[in-house]
């Protein structure tokens, strides 16, 4: 509940829109009830007049009937528009909020102990919370307010009638659904557990299939999947059945309430001379008023789900960043943010491990990279090449040793420890191609502009050219506007790597770190590409991480990282 309140507060800046949506929904609902009520009153009055042989002024009530009909349709239209609009606004607010909070956590604090589906679940959770406003908060407020309008109206005619209806509304809209959702708690939790079990079983089926088949245990695992599915289905069936009860009880209670209303009012007609048309009208009001509480069982039912979604999101964003900011962040985007002066890097006895329980990944790494050097880093998989990049970028905190940065600004050189720089300032020192670069599902142009939003098309082409990719891109029908990324045009791992190289080249930085830049290229093209990069980056530091000796031909020094237990020759 606390988490939901925390979420609700996020929508506070949008309270005007929420309120407008509530007001319009309320007006529509009341117009609907009013239409049926006034029509009933009208025909009953006309019938009495007909029997008495009297003439009744029917133009006012029939105009009212028409007006309510139009109000209902118009209200529904306006309400749908406003509430859709609000949905989008809240969605934007939630996404920006989540992005701002999760950004400092990437990648270190998001990597440990959680699966890769963390982010896609976060996205689904945000959608769930967005739904919470439109299908949770607004209908609840509307139900509350319409009951607040209907109760005094009924009370005006008969106190007993008002109390009986209120009792019916409260029990059908709140008490019974609460009881039902309490019973749904256990199957709901168990359903989630079995779903997780099913997920795990299918993961095992996929990842362990070779072993399962080799061991002759394929059927065994299939039976486990079937069992998890059956158990999950049983819980889901129970929940559906409870949902069905929640739905049907509203109808049942509304009929009972209408019957009770007819009984109470019939007595009043006989004893106290309540006008007949009032009986026809009030019975309909009682019956129709239950429409307002119809969404409530669903809201209550989903409250747990909403709270869980909120809790999961807060769990993520309340995580502490792995790299503490030692310096108050400078205003980013200010011109002094970029570093254009050449820098020397002096790394001494760098030690790093992902956590104290894990083995050391970097064990006393020492290297020097004076400004403008071409440096190679080699080593087998798992020797910590990528980790080294992450540590340089301040995504992870190094435990021991030092990374000294010597700035050759105008005037005398200034030396600082990497750790003492703000992490954004540290990252401004490097332009990096990581081992498996991420391409956004966007055009090639947009992917490149990420590195330098001000770059013109000529600059993009020249960067692509240096990355030996201009031929490929210009052969595409859509050229720079070709969509790449997950569901975009299939591009090979090597092409993705080179697109990332082009991207990194567009960024202005003192040092460039490229991880496996020539993947998928033949020796000749690779050589041309490295030479072109070398020319382009003259005066800048270039560190090439690769397990291919050819990539290290042009470097002045190669540093080898070793696996634990191996000793360099």
């Amino acid at each position, binding site marked *: 509940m606390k988490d939901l309140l925390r979420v609700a507060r996020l929508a506070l800046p949008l309270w005007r829109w929420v309120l407008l949506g509530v007001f319009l929904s309320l007006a529509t609902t009341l117009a609907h009830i009013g239409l049926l009520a006034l029509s009933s009153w009208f025909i009953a009055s006309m019938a009495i007049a007909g029997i008495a042989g009297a003439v009744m002024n029917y133009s006012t009530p029939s105009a009212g009937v028409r007006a309510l009909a139009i109000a209902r349709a118009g209200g529904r239209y306006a309400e749908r528009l406003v509430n859709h609009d609000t949905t989008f606004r809240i969605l934007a607010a939630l996404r920006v909020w989540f992005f701002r909070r999760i*950004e400092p956590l990437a990648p270190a604090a998001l990597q440990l102990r959680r699966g890769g589906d963390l982010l896609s679940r976060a996205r689904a959770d945000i959608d769930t919370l967005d739904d919470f406003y439109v299908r949770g908060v607004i209908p609840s407020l509307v139900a509350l307010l319409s009951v607040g309008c209907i109760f005094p109206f009924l009370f005006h005619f008969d106190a007993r009638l008002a109390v009986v209806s209120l009792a019916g509304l409260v029990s059908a809209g709140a008490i019974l659904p609460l009881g039902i959702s309490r019973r749904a708690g256990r199957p709901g939790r168990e359903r989630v557990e079995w779903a997780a079990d099913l997920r795990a079983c299918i993961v095992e089926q996929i990842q362990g299939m070779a072993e399962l088949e080799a061991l002759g245990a394929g059927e065994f695992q299939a039976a486990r999947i079937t069992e998890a599915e059956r158990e999950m289905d049983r819980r889901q069936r129970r929940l559906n059945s409870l949902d069905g009860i929640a739905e049907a009880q509203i109808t049942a209670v509304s009929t009972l309430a209408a019957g009770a209303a007819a009984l109470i009012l019939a007595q009043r007609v006989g004893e106290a001379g309540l006008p007949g048309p009032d009986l026809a009208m009030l019975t309909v009001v009682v019956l129709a008023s239950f429409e307002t509480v119809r969404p409530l069982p669903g809201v209550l039912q989903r409250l747990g789900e909403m709270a869980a979604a909120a809790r999961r999101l807060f769990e993520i964003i309340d995580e502490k960043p792995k790299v503490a900011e030692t310096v108050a962040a400078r205003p980013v985007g200010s011109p002094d943010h970029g570093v254009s002066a050449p820098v020397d890097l002096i790394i001494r006895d760098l030690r790093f491990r992902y956590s104290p329980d894990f083995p050391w990944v970097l064990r006393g790494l020492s290297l020097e990279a004076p400004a403008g050097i071409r440096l190679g880093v080699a080593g087998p998989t798992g020797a910590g090449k990528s980790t080294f990049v992450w540590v340089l970028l301040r995504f992870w905190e190094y435990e021991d040793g030092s990374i000294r940065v010597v700035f050759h600004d105008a005037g005398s050189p200034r030396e600082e420890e990497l750790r003492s720089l703000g992490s954004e300032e540290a990252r401004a020192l490097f332009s990096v191609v990581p081992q498996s670069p991420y391409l956004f599902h966007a055009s090639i142009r947009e992917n490149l502009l990420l590195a330098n939003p001000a770059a013109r098309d000529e600059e993009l082409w020249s960067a692509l050219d240096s990355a030996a990719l201009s031929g490929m891109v210009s052969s595409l029908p859509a050229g720079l506007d070709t969509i790449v990324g997950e569901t975009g045009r299939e591009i090979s791992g090597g092409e993705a790597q080179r697109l990332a190289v082009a991207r990194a080249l567009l960024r202005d930085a003192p040092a460039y770190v490229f991880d496996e830049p020539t993947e998928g290229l033949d020796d000749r093209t690779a050589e041309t590409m490295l030479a072109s990069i070398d020319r382009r980056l003259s005066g800048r530091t270039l560190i090439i991480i690769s397990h291919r000796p050819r990539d290290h031909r042009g470097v002045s020094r190669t540093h080898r990282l070793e696996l634990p237990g191996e000793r360099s020759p």
Partner: protein
Amino acid sequence: MTGTSLWLRQNGRRVRRPLALTIALGELSGVLLVLQTALLVRIIDAVIFRHAAIASLSVFFLGLLAAVPARFVVMWASRRAGYECASRVKRLVRGEAVGHLRARGPIALAGMKTGEVVTVAVDGVEALEGYYARYLPQRALSTLLPFTVLACVFPLDWISGLTLVLTAVFLPVSMIVIGEESHARNQRLWATLARMSGRFLDILQGLTTIRMFGAARREAAEIERATDEYRTATMSVLRIAFLSSFMLELLSALSIAIVAILSGLRLMAGTMQFAPAYFILLIAPEYFLVLRTLGTFYHTRMEGMSAAERIIALLGAREPAAAATAASAAERRPRLLPPSEGGGSLVVFEEVSFSYGPRTVLEGISFVLPAGSQVALTGPSGIGKSTVLALLLQFIEPGSGRVLVDGLPLQLRDPKEWRKRIAWLPQRPTLFHGTIRDNIRLGRLDASDPEIENAARLACMEEFLCRLAAGLDTIVGEAGQGLSVGQVQRVALARMFLRDPGLILLDEPAAHLDPHSAEQVMSSIGLLARGRTVLMATHRGSAGMERTLVLAGGRVREEP
């Protein structure tokens, strides 16, 4: 018709009976509603116009009271029947999805993104529920119920009946004219939402890249701008799209108003009775049920459609029936000869070639493993050592050439039977969720507890088992205790000790182990290997094997 709706419809045919039951119960609930309304009208009419005493109406009150539980039960049962439809479809589709994965085999599966497949097989299939449990029955009822209402209205008052029919004439017309268009727009709205959501996920997944380029603030502004832009664009579309539903809504509200006014005029003129007029007014809203459910209609339908699309993509765009035959085709390979019993197997590779798509890995390799021989297969990583093992495990079949075991081509053996004669230690063995004991038992499902304990001892597991409070009953796997690589290796080794293999396949058994564990694992393997044929893939050294085969450039040569 698109493939997606065809697929949805075909699966709908598999649950015809529960679907019919759901619809019938929904219709029955509608009839009960008519009955209840008639009773309520009868009571009110009697009180107002016949000045009846309440006592004389008790039979009607009792009738009303009796109808309450009846309708409650019918509605509830309908809901449950609806779930039954969905449940059956879910089970069938998921069964096919899992069967399909197994039919593709471990090698083809290695290229798939596990997370995506699991999401489709679990959540994607669950998302079909709304479509079968609610959308399909509701769609049928939205045509059935209006006829039920008309059947009640016409005998009572043809003018009101005609009013409703006339709006009904307008309804389909306007539904066709604007409905089609609004359907297209709804689809676009849905697509827009999905795209926005996809873009957001894309940004989250690329967060590290964004930070690397110091673009975080820019992207935050971009999310806001994009969502806002989508909002403005979508809202301008919706303003028009909602007009169509506004027209329908207006039509239904006005037709109720017209029914009321026309009835009122005739009531005053004395040409009509109050009771039928009141009754018609009260059940007229049911006539427009289709409108009330229109919004949720689209939502559920779209959810079902997009889930179906993802499932079809997983199943390889095949129709349900076709998927089933594909699975059984894989089963239909010849299974003529049982494997030979006892001792080590004699393995012969004759000019065996294999390629993964365009990439050729093995180019006509030939070698012989005599029964009981112990051979190392070396070469740098990625050269095809695991492919040789996969061929022996019958996960793949040679592109050309033959693999013979004990003189018989492997193609003629039933893979299930043949694999019983193999003990395979994969490079990175998998731990399945469950106890360590369960994990060892996978080696032979009917192994007894003492056999398992013995296997654990032979695999040198005692050293770490005694450090676990629950010993062999420690829960491991996904949510359980993490074991180190070396410990997992030993669990897999214990599995092998439960088997009686003619051929032992080892894939880099010591690659991820520290020297001490490697020594232990190798000496356990030595125990098992006595008298059996062993093939060990390794990228360094011959590791104590009798002979060494070197794989290079798609060919194999014997190292002296």
